[in-house]
């Protein structure tokens, strides 16, 4: 009886412990399967450096079947042989989720002595211990195109014009009217998306001397719509504050004033009172980093109807 009691007690306990061990092993195996199934796609990667901060812009998508938590971003500056990490990230992505980190949402890594023109190698680390490299393929291709015509690139298909609801307020802002047919003899402002693709990855600042220029041609007067600042409700500011575009950043720039707001006051401008087609140009003026910068972008053709 005693021997039976002893063996039963021990035997049952061993069975329970073995079951617990098997459960632990299964848990570890499941962890490995989840780790293998993690799939994160990172696109539209850009870097910029301001002071001791490296700003990483990226679009992150969870293409895998399991949710993913990104906890650390590492950045290695291959040129300066420096590195840094941001271990305060807590990015949670459910299956199919996409998060965009641009502008003020860009991910920051502190690194002294770095420069925008340096070569960076960044990667994310997930909570499960996977590494997700950030590749800058698209940025390189577009930037190579931009080198030929300047550092600011135009999004042709998002060109738009705005009509006014009052003397200094645009209607349907920021949507406007996308297209290249513009009503004649009408007060309008023009909007276009510009992207900073400067190969040296420096910030471009556009000053008040920038304008949307329409050369005169037979029967049509020359016109110039100068750059303005527009509030979110569509109201045009009476003064102008320079607009900055970090590397890879895209902003809609509005041209509305008949006067350079650094030299004069705001005034609306009408389109020509003629059925005609005109060529237009963007004359941009400002700074690239700390150096002077100017660019003339051959622009769109407009038909006034």
């Amino acid at each position, binding site marked *: 009886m*005693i021997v039976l*009691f*002893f063996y039963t*007690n*021990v035997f049952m*306990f*061993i069975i329970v*412990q*073995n079951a*617990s*061990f098997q459960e*632990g*092993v299964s*848990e*570890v195996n499941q*962890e490995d399967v989840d780790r293998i199934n993690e799939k994160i796609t990172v696109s539209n990667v850009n870097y910029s450096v301001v002071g001791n901060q490296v700003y990483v812009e990226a679009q992150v998508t969870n293409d895998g079947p399991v949710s993913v938590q990104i*906890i*650390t971003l*590492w950045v*290695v500056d291959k040129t300066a042989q420096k*590195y840094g*990490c941001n*271990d305060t990230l807590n990015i949670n992505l459910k299956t199919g989720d996409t998060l965009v980190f641009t502008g003020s949402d860009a991910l920051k890594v502190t690194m002294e002595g770095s420069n925008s023109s340096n070569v960076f190698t960044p990667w994310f*680390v997930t*909570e*499960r*211990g996977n*590494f997700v490299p950030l590749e800058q393929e698209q940025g390189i291709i577009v930037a190579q195109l931009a080198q030929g015509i300047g550092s600011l690139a135009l999004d042709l298909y998002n060109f738009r014009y705005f009509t006014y609801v009052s003397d200094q307020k645009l209607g349907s802002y920021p949507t406007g009217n996308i297209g290249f047919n513009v009503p004649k003899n009408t007060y309008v402002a023009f909007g276009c998306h510009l992207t900073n693709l400067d190969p040296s990855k420096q910030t471009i600042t556009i000053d008040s001397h920038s304008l949307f220029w329409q050369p005169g041609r037979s029967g049509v007067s020359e016109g110039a719509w100068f750059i303005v600042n527009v509030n979110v409700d569509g109201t045009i500011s009476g003064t102008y504050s320079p607009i900055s575009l970090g590397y890879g950043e895209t902003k809609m720039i509005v041209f509305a004033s008949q006067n350079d707001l650094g030299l004069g006051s705001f005034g609306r401008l009408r389109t020509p009172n003629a059925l005609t087609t005109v060529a237009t140009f963007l004359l941009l003026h400002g700074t690239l980093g700390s150096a002077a910068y100017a660019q003339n972008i051959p622009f769109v053709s407009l038909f006034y109807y």
Partner: protein
Amino acid sequence: MENRLTRIIRRLFFNRRAFSPVISNTLLAGAVIALGFAVLSWTYTRSSVFNLEYADVVEANLDKIKEKLVFEYLFYNTSENTLTVYLMNCGKSNNVSLTNAYLSNSSWFQSFSDIELMFLNGTLTQSLDIGEEGYFKLSVNLVANTGYSIRIVTERGRLFETPFIA
């Protein structure tokens, strides 16, 4: 008083009449039951000790299996001759501490036993809990742009290894 007690004891020893069978059987049964309980208690204690030891071994093995460290980044500073190794505990075991590190290549080997593990903010720590990241530095003279392998051993006996280029 003392004389009376002495008489009683003497009578007990020199009484030639036997106990009755009922009393003797009762005494015998009592002795057997007492002995049985004593053995049962001893058996229970021994089996409990054995079970506890077995549970500890199983738990230790589970913790060991659940340990997982990944090498986040390795940086060799050529001017200071220091290799900084960044790690993360991505397993399911807490208190992962390091006992040894081994550096090697095809023709060379060096071991390190005095490893000072630190959190990323530079605070000294003995171990990394689940999800924590840390690093340690090794003073070593490596040849730049040459392939090496680093192997670390945890206190529980797990081994993690990765190749790198100095």
